[in-house]
């Protein structure tokens, strides 16, 4: 019986370490992101003195709950090798739609499903454009973005205040112990992260997402349901945008058609910083969560410093640049092997 020798890891490392390294190579960018997050928190603490407090850490989750939800949906789409630029606008649209419906007396048990379905429908339309009309994901979701933004203005041109108790409850503190607190929005966001991670790792649908990102043609030849899976990825992103709309409404206490401009880019940045390859096929929801926290920490630190918030964007931009370059190096290295 012939056995094939595999010689590729550096000499000197034991086979266990070597096996672990090749097995877990795709986790390296995630660990890098985690390293950056820890470095940021430590640097913040040593520079600002009172940065690592329960209050700051708790509000990290509270302030970024909507971004976390968007990032989970975006991770699905980017893993297939696509992109969804519509999420910020869909968030604004569903939020203003919800606020309008609530202000007209529609009960929140109806409004929330309507917001989610609204997101799902826009996601389905974008997915259909990509799948059946061969439109580039960039263009299709750009169209979705304009459509959703337009719809938002159609619903209302001005801000609508939300007074519905259910929605407002989402932003109340469930408990408050020694500065630590948690709101229902944070719980929802963490649940979405957990659900996303489980679906991607443990379901056929999830693995098909990775397969499509690896090589769509091969996935098709393997007999995997490529069409259905890709459509569903955009629907998931849409639903997440709708849910983010709910969470964001609670966070702001109002709906406003100009909300969420540029949020799609923050989301993509967080996902990429979290180690997901823009070319698809490699990445984790957990990484995206870390990416969101990196983003949130930079934002918090800059407001602590009292500096201009534009520095958040500049720092994120620089980090993104570094990460994309690092990813390219990793990809180039693995393809050279």
């Amino acid at each position, binding site marked *: 019986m012939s*056995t094939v020798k595999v010689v590729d890891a550096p000499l000197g490392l034991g086979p266990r370490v070597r096996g672990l390294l090749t097995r877990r190579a*795709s986790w390296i960018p995630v660990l890098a992101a985690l390293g950056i997050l820890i470095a940021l928190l430590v640097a913040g603490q040593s520079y600002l003195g009172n940065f690592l407090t329960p209050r700051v850490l708790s509000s990290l989750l509270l302030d970024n709950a909507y971004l976390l939800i968007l990032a989970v949906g975006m991770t699905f789409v980017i893993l297939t090798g696509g992109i969804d630029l519509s999420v910020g606008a869909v968030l604004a649209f569903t939020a203003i739609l919800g606020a309008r419906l609530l202000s007209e007396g529609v009960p929140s048990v109806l409004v929330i499903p309507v917001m989610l379905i609204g997101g799902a429908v826009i996601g389905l339309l974008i997915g259909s454009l990509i799948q059946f009309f061969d439109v580039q994901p960039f263009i299709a979701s750009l169209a979705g973005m304009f459509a959703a933004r337009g719809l938002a203005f159609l619903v209302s041109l001005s801000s609508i205040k939300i007074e519905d108790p259910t929605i407002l409850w989402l932003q109340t503190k469930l408990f408050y112990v020694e500065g630590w607190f948690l709101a229902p929005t944070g719980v929802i966001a963490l649940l979405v992260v957990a659900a996303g991670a489980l679906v991607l790792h443990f*379901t*056929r649908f999830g*693995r098909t997402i990775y*397969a499509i990102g690896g*090589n769509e043609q091969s996935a098709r030849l*393997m*007999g995997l349901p490529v069409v259905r899976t890709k459509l569903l990825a955009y629907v998931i992103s849409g639903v997440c945008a709708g849910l983010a709309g709910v969470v964001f409404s609670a966070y702001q206490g109002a709906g406003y058609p100009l909300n969420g401009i540029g949020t799609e880019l923050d989301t993509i940045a967080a996902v990429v910083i979290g180690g997901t390859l823009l070319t698809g096929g490699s990445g984790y929801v957990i990484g995206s969560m870390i990416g969101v926290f990196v983003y949130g920490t930079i934002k918090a630190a800059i407001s602590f410093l009292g500096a201009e918030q534009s520095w958040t964007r500049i720092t994120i931009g620089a980090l993104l640049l570094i990460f994309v370059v690092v990813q390219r190096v990793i990809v180039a290295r693995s393809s050279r092997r």
Partner: protein
Amino acid sequence: MNEAAVPIVEVRGATVRFASDTALDSVDFRMFGGEVHSLMGENGAGKSTLIRALTGARPLDDGTIALDGRTVSLGSPVDAQRHGIRSVYQEIDLLPNLSVAENILLGREPRRRGAIDWRRMRAEASEALLDLGLSIDPASPLGSHSLAVQQLVAIARATSSDMRVLVLDEPTSSLDADEVAELFRIIRELKERGVAILFVSHFLDQVYEICDRITVLRDGALVGEYLTDELLRIDLVQKMLGKDAEALTVRSREPVEVNAPVPVLEARNVSRGVLRSVDLEVMEGEVLGFAGLLGSGRTELARALSGIDRPDSGSIVRQGRRVSLPTPRSAIALGIAYSSENRTAEGIIGQLTVRENIALAIQAERGVVRRLSLRRQRELAASWIEALGIRPASPEAIAGTLSGGNQQKVLLARLLALAPQVLLLDEPTRGIDVGAKVEVQNLVNELADNGMSVVFISSELEEVLRVATRIAVFRGGQVVAIQPTEALASRSLLAIVTQPDDAW
């Protein structure tokens, strides 16, 4: 032979048209259970098209496919798989970003309460791999393994489930002798189980070793179906080509009397990857064959000599001058051109036309500003199409639709258009059929006669022996012997190539 009354697969009047071309013209084809069947034909004879129809990748425009006597429609690969038709395509079509286990079991993963059971999945994958004599970590990413291993994984994927028909399209082109023997053992096992196996290969020896029945296609039409035992090789080749086999023999080269051979390209003490301080000289006007097993360092040296990969240490010397080759481009500027063994990934650009593919390198050398006019490009393409006999003879054909042999010729045309002095060809005849192979070999000899130095890499020792004037034998990252071809016979070459390292 187990000749059942009803064939498992029966194709009648299969016709497929691509635009105006008829790729397959009312072909009848059948396969019996417990039999290995080979589909033979030159490039463009319609083999791939028939296989694609059979595996649901390309529906028939006309004709029917019946399984066990019942007509079925195979609209997609899923349909075909549901009917028990599995396939391993010529170009490995797995997912490098996923684990080995997933590549084997994707789409039918073991599940427990709806969730994928990773532990069982790895165990099942391990088992399927061990059946193939392969012990690798099923959780490792596929992309971290060599092409040969990936090929075996593809076969494991195809075989590890209840199947009736197995289609193997050039399964052995990246396997070494041991691995091929292993594959044949598996094929025989499956045959015992009553599976109908379609084995497509351009290695005549392998076809004669394993196949019971042969169907020959030519120009998209059926030539006939024969029992292997009753068909002489020479007749088979004649049927495939439709012409006399005389034209097939490689014109033997007059040994060129060179007073003092001048080295045109040298590697001095080159190390990189598996290569361990290799010294080598390529002489003017010679065909230097690189013989050796997969992973012996033959490709690595060719890549180092042509600026694709930078040596970790050592130097490259061109015409007596030490040169640095940071990029393939710098090598091309010095008259050194390399053609990769991985034709589809590192060679042909499938979406572009033949003309664009041929003009690519010369355009790159000129730079973007000095654009080749369309007229000039057409002339260039037309002259190479004629010179190399590329089919279809249309400069505007999309390169991806050409057969493997013709794609290889397009690649050669691209490099030859640069008028290089040293040409490094890595597996130029892999996956292409006898006729095209001989054409490529003849071309190599012609080029050398005209003073070009050619490095010819091939896993087929006979081929190296036939084409090369001198042979460098690689083993374990070193050149273990360099000898004139006359001094080596197939057997002795094989002995050097496969000798275990510890014997030295």
